[in-house]
C-alpha cells in the first residue's frame, strides 16, 4: 500500500540560491583573489611593478563588478564574439591612450618622464586585466564549460612561473631562489608549496563552480594527496634534467629523435633550448687554473677505426688510460700517464646531475674513487678524481717524437689507421709544407700548423649538413668547412694520423676557466659538451691540440650561472656543511622546518594507513561479531560499500527512502535495510521489554549470520554489475570512503 504524497514533486534537495548572482560573497572573494594573483604573476615579467599591481587591481575590481551584476544585466546578455570584440576595442583604446601619454612631450616636461611611463603602464595593464577578467567571468557565467578558460588562465600563470625551474635550474626563478637561499631554505620546497597551492586553488575554483557543499572535505582530501606527492619526491627523487644534445656522453637515448648512438655525427637535432641545463658540478680540492683558458674533462676517447669512422676502442690494448666503469673501489691508472714530473696532482669531487655512461675527470684523470653522496635527490653519482694536470711549457712539447716506444706494432697501426682517402695526406702535407725547416719533422709543430689552419678557416656552426655523408669528416674538411666540435675533432685527428702522428678524438666537457669565477666549484652545463683531437707525444702522453675556429655562426655563450654553481657546490661539498650553512642563514629560527615537514609527512602517511585500516575493519568486522550484532555491522558495511561507490544517503533522507531510491539497481540493499530496521532495538521494538524477556536473542536476530553475509555478498555482486570500472577502482582505493557513509 502506498499513499502518494500530494507534494512529492517538491524535491527535498532543492537548495538553489535565492539570488542569481554568482555564488556566495565568500566564494566570490576567493575566486577574485585567485584570479588577481594569476594576473599579477603573468604580468610581472612584462611590465613594471606598478603595471603588475594595476593588473591585479583591475582584475580584482572587474571580478567584483561583474559578479555583483544580476544575470539580466546587458553585459551578461551579450554573445561571446560581441564581448570579445568589445574587450579587444577597450584594450586597443587603452593601448592608444598609454602611447599618447608616453609620447606627449609637455606632460613629460611637467610631471617627469618616469612617472609618466609608470602611469601609462598602469592604465594599459589595468584595462587589459579588467578586459580579460570580464571576458573570463562572462564565459564562466554563461556557459557550462565556462569555468575551463578560467582554470587554464590560472594554471598557465603557475606553469609559466615554474617553467623557469625546469632543466635543473634549481635556483630559478630568481626571485624565489634568492628569497629561499637568503633564508636558508631549499628553493624546491617553496616551489612545491607553490605548486600544491596552485592545485588547491584550481580545485577550489572548480568546486565552487558546482557550488559544492562539501568543500572542506574535498580540500582535505586534496591536501592529503599533495602531501603524498611531497612524500614521493622525498623518497624517489626529482626528475633529472633532460638533454637532447649530449654527444653520447650520458649514454641516454636523446629525446630529440634521430640520434644514432654509434655515430657522433648523428646526435639528433641540435636543439639549443636546453643547452643551459646543468650536467654536473665539480669541486676543486686543489687550486688549479689551466694555462690554455679551458678545463678539459675527458670521459672517453674514440681511437679505433672501425672501417667507417673512429669509435671507442674494443681492443683492450688501446687506451689503457681510460676508465669506463664508475668506481666501486678505487681505480688507479696512474701508470699509464707519463711525464708525471711535469704534471701536477689536482683532486676534484664531481657530482653528476644526469646519469653518465662513464666517469669523467680533469685531463688526465688517474684515480677514481667513490665519494659520499650528500643529496641523493639531486646527485645521480658522486666520485672523487685525482688528475695529473699537464703544466707543459712549449719547449717540453717541441722536439718530441710521436708515439710511445713501448707500443707494439699493432698499437701503432691502430693509432694511425684512418679512412682510405688520399686527400687527407695531400692536404696535411700541403699544410705542413710551409713550416720552417727546423720544425719540418716535428710532430707537435705539424699538429699546431694543422690546428692554426683550422682555426683560421673553419666556421663554427650547429648546422649538421655532413651527418649522412659516407665520411662526414671529409665532407666537412673538403667541403664548406662548416661544422661543430665533432667535425673539427675528426678532421684534425685524420689529418694528424695522415702525418703519422698517433691521434684520437677525446670526448667530454670543456669549460671556460672564467666560469669558475674565483670559487672552488665549477658548473658543467650541456653546452660544454665537447670533442677534441689529441696526439701522443713520447714521454708526454696524450696532448690536446684543439682547433678553435675564429668564425662562428652561432652564439654559444651562455649566461654564467654563478648562483646555481655556488648552490650546487655547497650542496656537494658536504651535507653537514651545507646544513650548517643553511642553519647559519636561517639563524636561530623558532621552527625547524625540515623536521616539521618530515613529521607532517609521517603524520599524513600514518593517517592514510589508519584510514585504510578503519575502512577494512568496518567492512570485515561483522564476520567475527556476535549474531545479535549482525544487523548493525552488516548494515554499516553495506552503507560503507555504497558510499565508496558514490551512493550515499542524503541529509534528512530516511533509511527507508534511501533504500527505495537505490533499489532499482541494488535490490539486495533494500532487503538488508529492511532487515536492519526491523532488528534495530529502540526503533522497531521496545528494547527494554525485549531485554527483560528471555526471548531477546530470538527477537533481535531475526536472521542468521549466514543469511546476513549471503545478503551482503549479493549486494557486492550487484554493485559489481551495475557500476563502471573507475567507480569500482575508486571504491577500493579511496581511504576515506567510510566517512561519507551515514
Amino acid at each position: 500500500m502506498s499513499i502518494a504524497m500530494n507534494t512529492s514533486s517538491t524535491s527535498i534537495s532543492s537548495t538553489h540560491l535565492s539570488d542569481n548572482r554568482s555564488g556566495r560573497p565568500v566564494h566570490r572573494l576567493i575566486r577574485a583573489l585567485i584570479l588577481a594573483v594569476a594576473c599579477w604573476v603573468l604580468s610581472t615579467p612584462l611590465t613594471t611593478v606598478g603595471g603588475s599591481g594595476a593588473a591585479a587591481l583591475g582584475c580584482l575590481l572587474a571580478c567584483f563588478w561583474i559578479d555583483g551584476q544580476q544575470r539580466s544585466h546587458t553585459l551578461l546578455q551579450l554573445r561571446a564574439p560581441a564581448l570579445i570584440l568589445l574587450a579587444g576595442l577597450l584594450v586597443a583604446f587603452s593601448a592608444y591612450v598609454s602611447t599618447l601619454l608616453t609620447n606627449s612631450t609637455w606632460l613629460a616636461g611637467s610631471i617627469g618622464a618616469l612617472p609618466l611611463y609608470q602611469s601609462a603602464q598602469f592604465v594599459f595593464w589595468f584595462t587589459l586585466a579588467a578586459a580579460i577578467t570580464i571576458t573570463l567571468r562572462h564565459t564562466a557565467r554563461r556557459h557550462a564549460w565556462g569555468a575551463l578558460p578560467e582554470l587554464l588562465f590560472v594554471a598557465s600563470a603557475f606553469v609559466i612561473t615554474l617553467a623557469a625551474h625546469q632543466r635543473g635550474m634549481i635556483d630559478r626563478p630568481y626571485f624565489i631562489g634568492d628569497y629561499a637561499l637568503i633564508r636558508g631554505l631549499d628553493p624546491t620546497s617553496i616551489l612545491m608549496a607553490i605548486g600544491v597551492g596552485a592545485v588547491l586553488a584550481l580545485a577550489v575554483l572548480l568546486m565552487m563552480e558546482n557550488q559544492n557543499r562539501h568543500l572542506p572535505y574535498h580540500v582535505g582530501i586534496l591536501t592529503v594527496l599533495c602531501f603524498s606527492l611531497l612524500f614521493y619526491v622525498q623518497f624517489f627523487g626529482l626528475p633529472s634534467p633532460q638533454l637532447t644534445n649530449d654527444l653520447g656522453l650520458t649514454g641516454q637515448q636523446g629525446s630529440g629523435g634521430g640520434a644514432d648512438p654509434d655515430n657522433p655525427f648523428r646526435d639528433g637535432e641540435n636543439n639549443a633550448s636546453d643547452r643551459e641545463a646543468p650536467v654536473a658540478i665539480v669541486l676543486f680540492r686543489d687550486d688549479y687554473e689551466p694555462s690554455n683558458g679551458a678545463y678539459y674533462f675527458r670521459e672517453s676517447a674514440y681511437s679505433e677505426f672501425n672501417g667507417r669512422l673512429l669509435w671507442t676502442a674494443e681492443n683492450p690494448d688501446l687506451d689503457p688510460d681510460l676508465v669506463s666503469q664508475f668506481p666501486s673501489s678505487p681505480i688507479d691508472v696512474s701508470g699509464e700517464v707519463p711525464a708525471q714530473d711535469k704534471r701536477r696532482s689536482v683532486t676534484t669531487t664531481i657530482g653528476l646531475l644526469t646519469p653518465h655512461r662513464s666517469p669523467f675527470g680533469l685531463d688526465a684523470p688517474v684515480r677514481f674513487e667513490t665519494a659520499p653522496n650528500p643529496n641523493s635527490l639531486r646527485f645521480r653519482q658522486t666520485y672523487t678524481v685525482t688528475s695529473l694536470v699537464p703544466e707543459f711549457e712549449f719547449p717540453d712539447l717541441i722536439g718530441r717524437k710521436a708515439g710511445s716506444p713501448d707500443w707494439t706494432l699493432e698499437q701503432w697501426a691502430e693509432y694511425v689507421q684512418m679512412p682510405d682517402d688520399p686527400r687527407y695526406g695531400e692536404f696535411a702535407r700541403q699544410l705542413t709544407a710551409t713550416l720552417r725547416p727546423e720544425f719540418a719533422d716535428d710532430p707537435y709543430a705539424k699538429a699546431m700548423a694543422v690546428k692554426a689552419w683550422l682555426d683560421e678557416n673553419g666556421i663554427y656552426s650547429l648546422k649538421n649538413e655532413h651527418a649522412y655523408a659516407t665520411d662526414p669528416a671529409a665532407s666537412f674538411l673538403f667541403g664548406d668547412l662548416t661544422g661543430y666540435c665533432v667535425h673539427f675533432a675528426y678532421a684534425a685527428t685524420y689529418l694528424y694520423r695522415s702525418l703519422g702522428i698517433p691521434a684520437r678524438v677525446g670526448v667530454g666537457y670543456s669549460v671556460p676557466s672564467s666560469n669558475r669565477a674565483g670559487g672552488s666549484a665549477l658548473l658543467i652545463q650541456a653546452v660544454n659538451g665537447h670533442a677534441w683531437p689529441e696526439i701522443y707525444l713520447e714521454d708526454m702522453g696524450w696532448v690536446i691540440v684543439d682547433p678553435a675556429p675564429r668564425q662562428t655562426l652561432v652564439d654559444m655563450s651562455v649566461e654564467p650561472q654563478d648562483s646555481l654553481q655556488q648552490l650546487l657546490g655547497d650542496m656537494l661539498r658536504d651535507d653537514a656543511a651545507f646544513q650548517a650553512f643553511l642553519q647559519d642563514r636561517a639563524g636561530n629560527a623558532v621552527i625547524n622546518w625540515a623536521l616539521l615537514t618530515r613529521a607532517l609527512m609521517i603524520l599524513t602517511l600514518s593517517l592514510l594507513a589508519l584510514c585504510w585500516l578503519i575502512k577494512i575493519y568496518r567492512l570485515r568486522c561483522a564476520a567475527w561479531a556476535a549474531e545479535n550484532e549482525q544487523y548493525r555491522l552488516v548494515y554499516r558495511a553495506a552503507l560503507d560499500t555504497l558510499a565508496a561507490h558514490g551512493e550515499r544517503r542524503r541529509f534528512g533522507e530516511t533509511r527507508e527512502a534511501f533504500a527505495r531510491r537505490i533499489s532499482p539497481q541494488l535490490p539486495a540493499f533494500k532487503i538488508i535495510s529492511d532487515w536492519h530496521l526491523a532488528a534495530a532495538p529502540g526503533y522497531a521494538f521496545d528494547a527494554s521489554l525485549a531485554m527483560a524477556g528471555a526471548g531477546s536473542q530470538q527477537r533481535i536476530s531475526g536472521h542468521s549470520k549466514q543469511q546476513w553475509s549471503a545478503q551482503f555478498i549479493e549486494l557486492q555482486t550487484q554493485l559489481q554489475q551495475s557500476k563502471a570500472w573507475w567507480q569500482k577502482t575508486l571504491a577500493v582505493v579511496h581511504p576515506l570512503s567510510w566517512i561519507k557513509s551515514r
Partner: protein
Amino acid sequence: MQVMEAQATSNTDLDQAREVLVRLGSAVRAQVLGRDDVIELALIALMADGHVLLEDFPGSGKTTLAKALGEAIVDDQQVNTRTSNVPIAPFRRIQFTPDLLPSDVTGSSVFDASTNSFHFRHGPIFAHVVLADEINRTSPKVQSAMLEAMGEKQVTVDNQTYALDQLFFVIATQNPLDLVGTYPLPTPQLDRFLFKLTMNHVERDAELEVLNTWQQRRDKQSKKIEVGRTEILQARHAIDAGVFISDAIKTALVDISRALRVDERILQGNSTRSLVLILPALQVLAAMRGRNYVNADDLETLLPHVLTHRVELAPGSSDFVKILRDNMRAPMDHLARSTLSQRA
C-alpha cells in the same frame, strides 16, 4: 515468556486488524475510483479515532466516499450491550447552510402529546459516519456544537448529555474557492481534525473508469462487503497494543514541531494535541503497511497532512510543505542515525 506470548497474541490480533482494514478499504474502493490516497487516509483517520476535513470541488466524490464508508459498517452489537436503545445509523449527511441551527444537528426535545412529555429526538449526528458538507457555510454556533460532538463524543441538549457511539467518524468538507458568505473555521477548531486533505482532480484514466463503471456500481448492491462495528473497535485495540512507536520516533516528532515553532516563516506552530493525535494514525499506517512498528516513512507520509491546517504561515510565505521539509531534515537525519547506534 510472558512477553513472547503477549507479542504472539498481539501479532495475530494485528493480522486480524489488518484484514479488517483491507476489507474496509476494498469496500470503499469498489465505490470510489481513482482516490486511493484519500481513501487510505480516511481509513487511517477512522481507525485512529480522528476526523477528516476535505477541501475539494463539488462533485468530486466526497459524499460517495463517506457513504461507502458508512454503509460498509454494520451494527453487530448484541442488543443488551448497547449503550443506547436507539439504533445508530451507519451514515448521515448534514448539509450546512447559514440558517442551520444547532438542534438541527444534535437533535432536540419534542413534546409527545400521547405521553404528555418531552422526549429527545436524535439528530443526524448520531451515526457512525457523518458527512458534514460545506461546514464553513454555517454559523459559528452550529460549528461549535458540531466540533464539541467531535471532540467529546457527546451531545448536550437541555442540560441532558447524550453519548455518541464509540465509532464516530466525521468527514467535513469545505470549498476552497467560493468564500463569499462563509464563516471560515479558525485554527483552534481546525485542530480537531486529524487530517486536512486537499484533493486534486482524479487522473484521466481513473475518470474514464468512473464513467465506464458508474452503472455497474449503481446497480451492484447485492454482494456488499460488510465490516462489523465491533470488529473495527477490536482492530483499534489490536493496533493500539500491537504497533510499537519508538522513543526515537517520538523524539523526532517533538523536534520537528519545536523547529517549526521557531521558524520565522511560521506565525503559529502546531499544538501538542496534534502530536498526541498523530500517534494512533502512525500506528494504523504502520499496520496497514504490514509492520508492527512505526518507521520514518510513516512519519514522512503523515506529517504534511496532519500539520498543514494547524500552523499559520507568516505573511509572504506560502509553501508549508517546503518549510516542513526544511525543518524535518535535521530530526529525520538524527532518527536515521539512531538505528546504527550501539545503545538503543
